[in-house]
């Protein structure tokens, strides 16, 4: 029998059982949709990680208080002074305290992330100042109420105003006046924890005293002289802090940006793997659904198979007819799933999950749908093909 005739037979059967076919393909629709979304989410979180670490020096080290420690008490300005003086493999170091606060200028107000830091925060994070200057040591020592603002904050608070006019203006953060001394270059990306575009940087002591409060968690960021010195820098910092903290050497931990990047990538991978296994389970369940329906269909059409065999159908004709029915159902299920995913992905931007659609995702969705249909359709099709004509013909 020619393939065109086998396809004709397949479509006649599908047309006769539209609703059943739709129900059968539901499992595949959901499976394909899941695969596209899973791959999209995997790619999305991968891109997020890359975006986050794009501006980060790989030589960056984070020193964070351990959970269970008492916040700011564990890390202090003395710590960074000591690191600055004693650690020979460290080229820059800053203390950072993060928080957020209401910020206003004239009648405009918005909420901003606040980082209290020292001078080195700038080059550790690769920040460039578009206008004005960054926080200096003098600002820190004199506890000046000055602020360096991100590009996004500048747009929100000052709208169309030129950067040169913004510098020198006073803004109000948490009820106190701060002089804007600089506006940052727009970055576009963001860093873990603090997005400079939407953030404001003030001297560390000022932030601690007036904005975030004593109980805020403080961390230290340091930059190794060179990428090769990251391990040395970590060792030196650990020793210096342990000495300073007198035996309480476990109240902080040192991590470098490289391993943070690896950790973030790993967790993105784990998430993808987890979602992938869910998608696999959905497809297997969908496949079993197809298999069940096909078995029933073989039973229902036993007599028809008998007639076809009596008038000359070969095993292959019957096998292909049932197998292609399964493949057609699963392919259209896959295509519907992909179509749904194209509709759904734009809606995902309203959630926190970033989904990056890709042809790989669509391709995988379709390939896995077809593979499921072929795999689970084969056994029932084989069963139909192997029916003995005499038994099939006498089946009522």
């Amino acid at each position: 029998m020619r393939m065109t005739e086998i396809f004709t037979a397949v479509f006649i059967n599908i047309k006769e059982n539209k609703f059943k076919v739709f129900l059968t393909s539901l499992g595949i629709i959901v499976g394909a949709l899941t695969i596209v979304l899973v791959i999209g989410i995997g790619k999305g979180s991968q891109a997020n990680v890359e975006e986050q670490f794009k501006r980060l020096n790989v030589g960056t080290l984070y020193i964070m208080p351990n959970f269970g420690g008492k916040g700011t008490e564990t890390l202090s300005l003395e710590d960074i002074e000591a690191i600055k003086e004693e650690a020979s493999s460290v080229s820059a170091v800053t203390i950072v305290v993060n928080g957020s606060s209401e910020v206003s200028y004239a009648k405009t107000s918005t909420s901003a992330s606040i980082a209290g830091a020292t001078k080195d925060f700038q080059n550790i994070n690769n920040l460039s100042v578009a206008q004005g200057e960054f926080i200096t040591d003098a600002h820190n020592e004199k506890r000046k109420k000055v602020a360096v603002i991100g590009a996004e904050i500048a747009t929100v608070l000052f709208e169309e105003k030129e950067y040169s006019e913004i510098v020198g203006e006073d803004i109000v953060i948490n009820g106190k006046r701060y002089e804007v001394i600089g506006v940052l270059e727009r970055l576009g990306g963001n860093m873990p924890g603090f997005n400079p575009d939407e953030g404001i940087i003030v001297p560390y002591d000022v932030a601690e005293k007036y904005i975030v409060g004593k109980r805020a968690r403080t961390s230290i960021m340091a930059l190794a002289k060179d990428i090769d010195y990251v391990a040395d820098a970590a060792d030196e910092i650990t020793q210096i802090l342990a000495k300073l903290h007198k035996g309480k050497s476990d109240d902080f931990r040192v991590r470098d940006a490289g391993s943070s990047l690896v950790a973030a990538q790993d967790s993105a991978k784990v998430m993808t793997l987890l979602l992938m296994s869910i998608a696999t389970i959905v497809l297997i369940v969908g496949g079993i659904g197809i298999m069940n329906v096909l078995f029933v269909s073989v039973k229902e059409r036993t007599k028809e198979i008998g007639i076809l065999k009596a008038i000359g159908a070969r095993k292959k004709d019957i096998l292909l007819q049932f197998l292609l029915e399964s493949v057609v159902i699963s392919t259209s299920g896959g295509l519907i799933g992909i179509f749904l995913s194209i509709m759904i992905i734009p809606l995902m931007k309203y959630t926190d999950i970033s989904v990056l659609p890709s042809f790989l995702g669509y391709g995988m969705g379709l390939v896995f749908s077809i593979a499921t249909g072929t795999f689970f359709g084969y056994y029932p099709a084989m069963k139909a093909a192997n029916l003995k004509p005499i038994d099939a013909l006498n089946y009522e």
Partner: protein
Amino acid sequence: MDQENIIYMKDVVKSYKMGNNELVVLKEVSLQVKRGEFVAVLGPSGSGKSTLMNIIGCIDVVNSGEYRLSGQNIDAKSEDELSAIRNREIGFVFQKFNLLPKYTAIHNVQMPLLLRGLDRKTAYEKAKYVLEKVGLGDRIDHKPLELSGGQQQRVSIARALVGDPNILLADEPTGALDSQTGKEIMDMFLQLNQQGNTIVIITHDEEIAQKAKRIIHVKDGNIYQ
């Protein structure tokens, strides 16, 4: 072997296992049918005539003995080879028509040719010609359930004829029809025989059998000619 023999059966035995018992349905049956014959196989139900028909039609296989159809030894064939033989050698007409309900009349008639690998256009022309021949030229696009019993049996005769088989094998072709329609169908078989078709009809109806030119009686697995 005589070339004119379409059906050549020698000492054919067919039995089925029923639990521990062996039920012998055909006991060393020998039978020959020559080209152009019109044979009725007559016997009561349970006599073994349906089994005989299944063996003649290559739907079932023998336990022992020899069966040749158009000179080919049927014993040694694979299932797919048997399918091809059924397709080319035999035109089946069943008691309950056995048409494919989802397909139109003409699609049903086209099937044997499509299964043979013919293209749709050629099959369509041929099927249309045969349907006109059985008097259903105006019903070709109807599905079986939209046709009367007599019309369905004509479609099934058209399906049997379309592939130019060596033998028409009819199993109680009038069994599901009223007597008037049955008579018309029998007349059609007679006419087809006059045109040169070899016909074997299985029936339990003496009156039907009388129309054939040769009657073979089947009783308890034996045949009497």
